Each structure stands twice: as structure tokens, then as C-alpha cells.
């Protein structure tokens, strides 16, 4: 890989100061939140995005190859463009963590790590975080061979043997990235079929460094102070196998981040996703949700679907505020 100098959004020095009041406060600066900011800004709403980072999960994506208009672009670069685009239409970016959201009359009072503010509408776009395997050794050996961030750690496994656990796009993308460094990459998946797009599967099947280990699940991760082997179980025969590896990358999906919504009584589905209507509204008036955290888009979790939901949420927010002001 060539040398690059990013101005990663995570570190952009400009963070606006939090004001006392907004029309729209967006929680989360991933593709959903930034797209919502763009549309809300263009609708002339006073808009702020409060986020721990700008770019969300996409910052962890090595190369994005399925966002229309870009045949291949670095995740951080794509998100830098999202942010710049939203700022161009007046949306403000405040770096910080939202701690609490309360509804008082028609206002949402929002506590953040950088102060308290209020807004007529909250668009909740906090995305999701890595799901854990929940097996012995996973927590103990985290950072000692267990990783959830291939883009961070892949280069540390030069000439080593690694495993990737999972059958979705991320698992395949991570496995592909790892073949640039590791001598051998096992892809462990519980089923014989994969959720990943066929194009990723075909590419990896042709890669001589990759071996598919299916249908297996990881029972334990073992090693003295560092990962040394995985104990696997064949899902069809029940047979146990030991696979010596130096590292294991876990890509078994994501969990929606909804803690802040519980006190508001927001409806979640049985898997914990925020239930939204076609206009991205939740059961709480004025609270919209967008992106990976919701039930929308048939459960597809991609940049384009997150962005689409952000756009819809912002336009719905505009309608909601117009109506609210009509009543006043």
C-alpha cells in the first residue's frame, strides 16, 4: 500500500460550539446522520450533528466498492466528502457524546459531553457496534490476537496464520485485506452458504492463501497470553477440531446502539432495532431514526441505505416542524 496522508474526520480540528437551540439535532455522524444533515441543512433548518466521530463504521472500511459514483474509494475519504457536503449546506458538526435525551413539551432536551441543548426534532442515527462471539477466551485475549478491526491490525500479522469468523460482506472484505499480509487466512463460517455478495465470495475462493472452514463454529479461543488456537465444532457432525492460528478477526455482525432510547419508551423490535415507519418516524413524535439502528430497508445495512434513510428522516423532520409551527 502506498503512503497516504488522511485528514481523517476523526481528527478534524474544527468542531463547532454547541448552541442553545436547534431545529434538528442529529445523534451520530455516520452516513445516515451526515446525509440527514445535508438534507436538513438544505431545507434551511438549523441543524447540528453531535457525534463521537464523523464517519461511523465506514472509517473501519478499507475500500468501499459499492457506493454509486465511486468504483473504489477509501472509507474515510468518502465520509470526509459526506461531511464537507453537509457543512456546505449549513449543518454544524459538534464532536461529543450524547448522554441523555428527554422530551419536555414539544422540545427535546439533549445532554451531551460538551453541554446541554434543545431541539424540535431529534434524528437518531447511532448505528451499531460489533457483535461478540461470547465464547471463552474472546474477552481475555482481546488485543492479544482477537480483533474486531482488520483495518487497524491486519498489518501486524505479516507472515502469520489468521482466521476470520463470519459469512457476511465484512468478513470477506477483512479476509481479503488480511491476505495482503498473512501467510494463511481461514474463513470460518457456521453455514455452507454465505450472506456476502457473490462477487466477494468468488474473489476469495480464487485466492490461494484462503481456506474455507465450513460449517464450523468457534467454541473457544485459547492461548497463553496470546491467541494460539481455536477450538472449533463441526455443526453437522458435532466433531471438535483444533485450528492453530496467531490471530482471529471476528465479523459476525452488528448490534444496534439503542441505550439512549429506552427511557423515552421508543419501540424496538425483538432483535433490538428501532421500529420506524416509511417516513423514518418512531412512536415518539418528533423523534426520527435512520441507518443501521432501524428496521428499515429490509435489514440491509449499507452506506447507501443508511444515507437514504437519513435523507427521508430529514425531509420528514421538515414536514413535522412545519406542522408544529402551524399549530403554535
Amino acid at each position, binding site marked *: 500500500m502506498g*503512503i497516504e496522508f*488522511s485528514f*481523517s474526520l476523526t481528527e478534524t480540528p474544527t468542531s463547532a460550539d454547541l448552541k442553545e437551540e436547534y431545529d434538528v439535532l442529529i445523534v451520530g455522524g455516520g452516513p445516515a446522520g451526515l446525509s440527514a444533515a445535508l438534507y436538513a441543512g438544505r431545507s434551511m433548518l438549523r441543524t447540528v450533528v453531535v457525534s463521537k466521530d464523523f464517519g461511523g463504521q465506514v472509517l473501519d472500511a478499507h475500500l468501499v466498492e459499492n457506493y454509486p459514483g465511486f468504483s473504489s474509494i477509501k472509507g474515510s475519504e468518502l465520509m470526509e466528502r459526506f461531511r464537507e457536503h453537509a457543512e456546505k449546506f449549513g449543518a454544524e458538526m459538534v464532536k461529543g457524546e450524547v448522554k441523555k435525551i428527554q422530551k419536555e413539551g414539544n422540545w427535546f432536551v439533549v445532554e451531551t459531553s460538551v453541554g446541554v441543548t434543545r431541539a424540535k426534532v431529534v434524528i437518531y442515527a447511532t448505528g451499531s457496534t460489533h457483535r461478540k462471539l461470547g465464547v471463552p477466551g474472546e474477552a481475555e485475549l482481546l488485543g492479544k490476537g482477537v480483533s474486531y478491526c482488520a483495518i487497524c491490525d491486519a498489518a501486524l500479522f505479516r507472515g502469520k496464520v489468521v482466521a476470520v469468523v463470519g459469512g457476511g460482506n465484512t468478513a470477506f472484505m477483512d479476509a481479503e485485506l488480511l491476505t495482503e499480509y498473512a501467510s494463511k487466512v481461514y474463513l470460518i463460517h457456521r453455514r455452507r452458504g454465505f450472506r456476502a455478495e457473490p462477487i466477494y465470495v468468488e474473489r476469495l475462493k480464487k485466492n490461494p492463501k484462503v481456506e474455507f472452514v465450513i460449517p464450523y463454529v468457534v467454541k473457544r479461543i485459547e492461548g497463553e497470553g*496470546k491467541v494460539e488456537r481455536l477450538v472449533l465444532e463441526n455443526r453437522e457432525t458435532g466433531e471438535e477440531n483444533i485450528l492453530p492460528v496467531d*490471530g482471529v478477526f471476528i465479523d459476525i455482525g452488528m448490534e444496534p446502539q439503542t441505550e439512549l432510547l429506552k427511557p423515552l419508551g421508543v419501540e424496538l423490535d425483538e432483535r433490538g432495532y428501532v421500529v420506524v415507519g416509511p417516513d423514518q418516524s418512531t412512536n415518539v413524535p418528533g423523534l426520527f431514526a435512520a441507518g443501521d439502528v432501524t428496521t428499515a430497508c429490509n435489514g440491509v445495512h449499507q452506506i447507501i441505505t443508511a444515507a437514504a434513510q437519513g435523507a427521508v428522516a430529514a425531509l420528514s423532520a421538515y414536514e413535522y416542524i412545519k406542522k408544529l409551527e402551524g399549530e403554535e
Partner: protein
Amino acid sequence: MVLSDKDLNKVKEILKPVEKEVKILFFRDDGPECQYCNVIEELLEDIHSANEKVVYEVYHVKKDVEVAKKYGVEKGPVILFEEAPRIQYWGIPSGHEFPAFLGDILLVGTGKLDFELNPHLKEHIDAIDEDLIVYVFVTPSCPYCPYAVKAAHRIAYLSPRVKGIMVEAIEYSDLADRYNVSAVPKNVIVKADTGETLLEWEGCPPEINAAVDMFVHQIHHALLHAKGVEHHHGH
């Protein structure tokens, strides 16, 4: 030139607040270990062209022995600030580390802290009474790493007892192997005189105030632990 015109303009914008001269010392080497040394030199030249107040001098670790010795540099590439030589980069500040590097130039060039130093943290930093090295192992593609680097560097800026060193784990693979680095950021607190590892951990919250808070508290615990052990041996 290693920076595009667009990036150069951004650097210009970012470094606008620099008030006084910032002198960067770059210690290079030759051979395969210094594969990025030419790039680093070009990068420093680019930054200088973006802001004339940022100047740099290039030394050779093996030829400029006196200077290298003065700053305790044994191997290149090492970048440090003349005014704050405890802030160091071992390896190229590229990728996500580039903004951290620009942030350090701003810090040295303005003297202004870019995080909230509350009295509690200040008390802990002032109480550091051992010479420590805080290594932060990174890879340039790791989006969480710059927070750890910034935190270590800010503590190094504030405490005369702490050296904060970003180590690019691929260029410094021997050191990375010695500290069993298999995830980044990996942070190691070492006693400067004995080289004894006091505490090591992986990870860092992606927010500067939280990051500084974590590092200050880890240092505090490392020192308590070190004293506890010494105390124990004393009996």
C-alpha cells in the same frame, strides 16, 4: 511533494494559528529500516512550504552522533520537537497519524491545549515523579490510534518526566514484537531508567478528553503499582 495541492491548502488552514517558530528535528538513517525517510523529508518540506514558521533540520543518526546523543536517539526515523523533545514520532506520521502530527505542531506553535485540563488531571500530571516512557504503537490505517498518540503527547508536553512516543509498528517491527503488539493502539508505560514495563493495554476512546483521562489514570496506577512493589521489596 508528497501532499496534493488540496491537502497542502488544508495544512495551511490548520496551521494558521501557529504563532511562534516550531523547530522539528528529524533523525534519519539509511538502509531498509528507513524506507520512508525520504518521504518524511519531503513531508516536512511540504509542511514548511505551507507555513514558514514551521522549520526543520535533518540529522543522520550515525553521522550526527553528537546531536543524536543529546536527544537520546539511537535509530531512525525519529521526529521530535526542539522545544518539546519529549514528544516523539518513531516512524512516519502518515495516514491517521498525520492529523495528530499537525495537532502537535499547533500545540507547540501556540502553547494552547486542545483539551480540557481539569484540576484533577493536572494534579495527577504534576504528581508524576518518575521518568517514564509511554509508547503508543500504531498503524497508519487505524482510526482510533491518533487519540492515543495525542494523549501521550499532551502528557509529555505537560510533564517533564514523561516521554510520549508514537511507534509505527510496521517500521519498528522489532520493538513491536518485543512488546507483543497484535492490536493497535497498544500502549506501554515503561520506567525510563530500568526499562521495566509498568503497565500495558490496548485501545483508546476516540475522543481527546476521554483519551487524556485514560492515559493520566493509567500512569497514576502504574506509578502506584511500581511504588507498591518497591515498598514490598523494601521489607
